[in-house]
């Protein structure tokens, strides 16, 4: 009985994988011989399984993710890229900075016209990359699954404040099926919803995020002009993100495909006549 009392006092340790070595062997040996303790352990295991099943307890909003990505990346740029010997001389630099402060208006005025503006990644591109990653990890399941573009377009009706039209180039062109439409869901973007459409090509996911250009405008990154549109290309967390605006909507296409990920454009531009549309996105 004393053995049972000791063993039951260690059940949590055992189930939490905190019991090691001889203690663990002794515990397991007792369980093999004692049905009562085995039963109590099983009961506790089921209880813990029930508790652990609620994971994740909470999910951070897309807005928070965007805020973190933007603010943290900025912080890191400042902290990490500054050489250590310069950091050690911050106090000295502060004195110089004070002096420069008096000259700042003149410096700004002189260089304003000439200095190129930094090409920061847009929050929309960051949000699209993050959404793509979360979906790839299974953290963002689709709300509707279908391979029919029209069904996706219909599903978004009355759910978003803009019209989502998903082209069906594969069917109309009669070409070999190079990609698969998987489905769609809504994703939060600021105080609105954006449309998220998931594709798959050769086992690799492609994400298309659509919102109105009143909510997000593409900016930053490498800009490429083609067919009267301006595309912004960014590499974010190993992903290729292309953003652009067209006829009142802003799009982000995310993939881990090669080069600039321009192959992902195929989800809307598969026809041969569209190849000259995609070509400018290829690296020169």
């Amino acid at each position, binding site marked *: 009985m004393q053995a049972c009392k000791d063993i039951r006092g260690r*059940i949590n340790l055992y189930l*939490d994988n905190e019991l090691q070595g001889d203690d663990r062997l002794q515990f397991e040996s007792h369980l093999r011989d004692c049905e009562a303790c085995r039963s109590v352990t099983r009961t506790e295991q089921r209880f813990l399984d029930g508790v652990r099943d609620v994971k994740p307890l909470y999910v951070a909003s897309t807005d928070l993710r965007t805020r973190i990505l933007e603010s943290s990346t900025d912080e890191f740029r400042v902290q990490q890229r500054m050489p250590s010997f310069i950091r050690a001389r911050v106090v000295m630099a502060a004195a110089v900075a004070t002096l420069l402060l008096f000259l700042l208006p003149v410096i700004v005025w002189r260089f304003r016209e000439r200095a190129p503006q930094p090409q920061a990644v847009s929050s929309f591109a960051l949000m699209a990359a993050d959404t793509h990653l979360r979906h790839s990890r299974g953290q963002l399941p689709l709300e509707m699954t279908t391979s029919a573009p029209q069904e996706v377009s219909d599903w978004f009706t009355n759910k978003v404040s803009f019209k989502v039209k998903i082209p069906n180039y594969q069917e109309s062109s009669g070409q070999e099926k190079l990609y698969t439409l998987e489905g769609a869901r809504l994703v939060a973007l600021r105080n609105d919803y954006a449309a998220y459409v998931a594709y798959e090509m050769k086992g690799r996911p492609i994400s298309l995020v659509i919102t109105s250009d009143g909510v997000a405008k593409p900016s930053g990154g490498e800009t490429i002009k083609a067919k009267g549109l301006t595309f912004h290309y960014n590499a974010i967390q190993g992903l290729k993100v292309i953003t652009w605006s067209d006829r009142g909507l802003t799009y982000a296409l995310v993939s881990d495909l090669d080069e600039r990920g321009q192959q992902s454009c195929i989800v809307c531009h598969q026809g041969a006549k569209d190849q000259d549309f995609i070509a400018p996105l290829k690296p020169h």
Partner: protein
Amino acid sequence: MGDSLINEQAIAYIDALFGYAMTLTRDRPTAEDLVQETYVRAARAADKLAEDSNVKNWLFVVMRNAWLNQIRHQSKGPRFVGLEDEEFDSSTCVAEGNTNPQIIYLRKLERDEVRLAIESLPVTYREVVVLRDIEGFSYQEIATVLGCPAGTVMSRLARAREKLRGLLDSREPKTQARAV
């Protein structure tokens, strides 16, 4: 640790950190601010982090320190949070009395009910349950986050689970009503 920390590792823990922030604050806007504060602090201290460090554990420590700091600044007088059940007898953590009906009952509980029960725990208990059972930290890692001995984690966790079990036992199952 370089730029890649935020991009590859830290962001991967954002749900976990937000969950812990909600556990501590119980308020979404406050929790979001706490997450942001954590990342800012982490970014500033990242160059002190060794290459083989446990980033997740470290981020949780940073968050808890940020939270304690906020509490210190917000309260003018002493603050006592969630210790109403500290008088629980910690000498026994024997898991007895769990009979089959309880197992069956627990299985029928929806995740929301378990979540509600966790949320209604006092913060000291809620914290260890979340760190252990939701985030999967070891006792030693939890001790690092909480700044207390691993033995304290063990006893507190046992009491927290007893309390949680009691809360779940006292709830009416809603599963049957919802299952249409």
